[in-house]
């Protein structure tokens, strides 16, 4: 599983190593453990399944 996923709309990146402190995802939280109805926290117009794995 890739550890970085990018929003194809606005370029927001979710790094598994960093998590997202503001959103309440602890460092190390894998992308596939994010809620299924999760949307991009920056633009809100791309769904979880739209995110592209980067590496």
């Amino acid at each position, binding site marked *: 599983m890739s550890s970085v996923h990018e929003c194809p709309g606005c370029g927001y990146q979710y790094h598994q190593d960093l998590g997202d402190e503001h959103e*309440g995802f602890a460092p190390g939280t894998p992308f596939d453990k994010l809620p299924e109805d999760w949307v991009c926290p920056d633009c*809100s*117009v791309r769904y979880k399944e739209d995110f592209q794995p980067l590496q």
Partner: protein
Amino acid sequence: MVKRNMKTYALATDAGDISYTDTKRYLWMASLAYALMPFLGIGAHALFGHQAWLALPLFVAYVIGPILDWWLGEDENNPPEEIVPLLEEDPYYRLLPMLTVPLHFASLIGAAYWAGTQALSWWGVLLLAVSAGIANGLGINTGHELGHKKTQLERNLAKIVLAVPAYGHFSIEHNRGHHRDVATPEDPASSRMGESIYKFARREIPGAFRRAWAVEDERLTRKGVSVWSWANEILQSYTVTFALQISLIAAFGWVMIPFLAIHNFLAWWQLTSANYIEHYGLLRQKEPSGKYERCQPHHSWNSNHKYTNLVLFHLERHSDHHAHPTRRYQSLRNFKDVPRLPNGYNGMFPLAYVPPLWFRVMDPRLMALPHIDGDMTRVNIDPDNKEALYAKYGVAGLNENLSATEAA
């Protein structure tokens, strides 16, 4: 060629040189002037002595504004995609919305000072509250532009400017709620065909607050923090509102209570008006997965009218805003073949305030959109008016529904 008072961006690419001149570059400063509109009335009152002059900002907004939009017409220019990164990085454009933040504080404090210190009758105070409320409804627009951006400075300034009209829940509600649910029956900030603005407001104002609180509660619960804590970004903004408005009551007396109530409501009403006209009747279709299709350009009403777009940081190029919510105002594009409003927002707002006129102008426009083409099943419709609207417009859609039911 570089024209005076305009800025040309040039870029050498493999496909040749690309250049773009932003003819609106310095005109964007209109947003700064508009935030200070109450001072136009105060100045005229001070100069000519009669409190009726306090109505001058209303005259500018609702009479001069629509005339200018009609007279100056539309601007369909788009920056080339290659130039957009240059525009987005230009600090001049970034600075303007930030500079309007203190101006919104100034217009509220200035109008409150005038209401609290001059010998005005009740309708003089009312005019001041209304004109300050309209100017600071524009503060919600500034908060909108700033709140969509990715820098912490801009997001913090959004919380601060939203404190002026007491609408600190807007950034969360709008970014995480409205943009996710736009043009669906679930969105309290998308109006339905057959729904008057007065009915819409009763759904939108409380619905927006409830959704913002729920989204923030969910985020804070994930962090293991109580929603009743300083980490709650809604409460952070409300704290600034409380400090500001209590100070005004302490400084200028009890007249501030009705003054502030009217001011706050009028500012909210500007947002309600914008929300009402931006997605009227438009509907995203559900995919087989049960999720709604991604928001498309035809899910927003647009206007390219010059004057109101300058005042509103290109808010009226609404389709591109919903496609790319983090894109800055100077780079928002006009799309061909998107739903179009016949005038800018300042002309459409008064039309919305007279529901029979609004329905008469907008319902036929809605039904004629290429992706709807008379099909009522593709319209976000007010359930209470469904039968009447089907009877009036919906023969095609009704027939389709009936044959689908018979086939099943």
